[in-house]
């Protein structure tokens, strides 16, 4: 297994390199630059600012310089926020997104697994249709509708929570629910599907026919196999979850990383974009690897290919 992990890490290096190169050229070739603003600056000022950040050098030279910095882990300065480096911004914002992501994941797993299991065990009963119906709502209502609805109901009318902000423990509740709803729904469905597949297999039916009780059947035989599709799904999904959601962070005023993904691209904050993309890519690589490892551990029949 260690060889497998080591090999995957090695394979990740060219992947990251290609991503960095593609991002660099995509950003530089996009129209509009970091110093365009409504009150236009004079040509002299623009030239000086570009020189300050090395943007006046030939493109390929800038590319090599950027690669050199990246190898040292230096993600560069931010244009939009002079005085802050990208490393610093990510270090400041990521823990917030991480916390929100974990809380949303907890919500999603708690609701999703519970609903999925109940639905699978009591297929086609109320315990199947009601949770699955609720899950549908989570899947079909976009977060930018769910968020304001929850705020309107629980924060503005019932006054249980603040409308936005990230200071008190109670501020975590609504954003976690909003962010987790979609994943809860997806997990519930996947879990139900996976469990049903297992439950319908011959060996399970045999065990049940022999009189083994519901819970024993569930935990002894089905759990490992039923969670398989959930793990497959979670691998890449968690990367998005943990690095932040632009919509939820905007609506609830959460100072996380997700917003920067979007605003950096809009601001043409070149180094910030590169930093965010690479950070996210590393996450995806690590989480995919983790998901694959867990999959094999759960189902030894799959081999490390």
């Amino acid at each position, binding site marked *: 297994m260690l060889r497998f992990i080591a090999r995957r890490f090695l*394979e990740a290096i*060219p*992947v990251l390199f*290609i*991503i960095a190169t*593609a*991002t660099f050229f*995509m*950003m530089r*070739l*996009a*129209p*509009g630059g970091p110093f365009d603003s409504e009150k236009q600056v004079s040509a002299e000022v623009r030239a000086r600012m570009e020189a300050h950040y090395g943007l006046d050098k030939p493109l390929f030279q800038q590319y090599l310089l950027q690669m050199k910095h990246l190898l040292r882990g230096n993600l560069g300065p931010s244009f939009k926020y002079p005085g802050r480096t990208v490393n610093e911004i990510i270090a400041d914002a990521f823990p917030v997104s991480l916390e929100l992501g974990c809380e949303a994941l907890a919500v999603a797993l708690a609701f999703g697994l519970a609903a999925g299991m109940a639905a699978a065990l009591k297929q086609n009963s109320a315990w199947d249709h009601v949770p699955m119906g609720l899950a*549908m*709502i989570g*899947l*079909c*209502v*976009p977060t*930018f*509708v769910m968020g*304001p*609805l929850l705020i*309107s109901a629980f924060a503005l009318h019932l006054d249980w929570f603040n409308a936005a902000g990230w200071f008190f423990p109670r501020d975590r509740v609504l954003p976690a629910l909003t962010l987790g709803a979609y994943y809860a729904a997806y997990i519930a*469905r996947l879990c139900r*599907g996976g469990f*049903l*597949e297992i439950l*319908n*297999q011959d060996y399970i039916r045999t065990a049940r026919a022999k009189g083994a009780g519901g819970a024993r059947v569930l935990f002894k035989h089905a759990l490992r196999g039923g969670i398989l599709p959930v793990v497959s799904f979670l691998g*890449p999904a968690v990367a*998005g979850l943990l*690095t932040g959601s*632009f*919509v939820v962070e905007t609506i609830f005023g959460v100072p996380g990383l997700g917003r920067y*993904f*979007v605003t*950096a*691209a*809009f601001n043409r904050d070149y180094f910030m*974009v590169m930093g*965010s*993309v690479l950070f*996210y*890519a590393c996450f*995806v*690589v690590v989480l*995919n690897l983790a998901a694959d490892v867990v999959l094999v551990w759960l189902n030894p029949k799959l081999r490390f290919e």
Partner: protein
Amino acid sequence: MADSTPMAMVEPAETGGGSSFWQDAWHRLWQNKLAVFGLVVLGVLAALCFAAFLWPKITGFSYEQQNLALGPAPPNRVHWLGTDPLGRDLLARLLYGGGISLMVGLCATAVSLTIGVIYGAIAGFAGGKLDMVLMRIVDILYALPFAIFVILLMVFFGQNIILLFVAIGAVEWLTMARIVRGQVMAVKRQEFVEAAHALGLKEGRIIFRHIVPNLLGPIIVYATLTVPEVILLESFLSFLGLGVQPPHSSWGVLIKEGAEVMEEYPWLLIYPGAVMALTLFSLNFLGDGLRDALDVRGSKD
């Protein structure tokens, strides 16, 4: 119950491509009330939306006609679903927008389907080095954050609907490719394929007559489930201001605009939201039903 003859077990294609399997599947689907409900709803909605161009002839309101003096009005006899802040008829915009959203959904799904199936089938069937390279490319694309990628795409090529299909299709095909590859690799090892090999059938024939029919199940299911994701992605792009451009509407645009004014003019969110949710429900129920019906492994009597 129809039995397959011993001859048919060696060459199932010779008896007509597993027709009894498909008939069984259809029968199972038909029994699933939710799936049927979904199918019917979709059919009605699709018909309504694609016939949206007839609507102005009936009521005289088109999706872009403004009535600034009227402004936002709740549902009444003239405007059955009310109007938006520019005085445009909501029902007209809803139907027109539905047509656009469904079209985006179907086209992007078709794009992702085509690319994904071909890509995944090649990777899965070839195996070895080619498979590794192809999957690494998928990993690279997977690791690009969607938001940044779409913004750049929109920025480069301007904002038109075709680009929207391409952008969304370009993201969705990755998962489809992965699924197809996995499925191909699983099927590749099954006995009837080995039997076909043993009988000396050519590779191409094996792929198309034997493997692909077994892929159809998951592909259909996943395609049906991709359409709602595409529609939701379009609404996210509208939230960023990158989706369908004015004066056209789409469900994403309507919902985003409705969410902003949901407390003053709730009808602007309720109706588009309900219709979109209904469509997504139907697609999901249909997809679930198809999955249950086409479940190759689960031998339900």
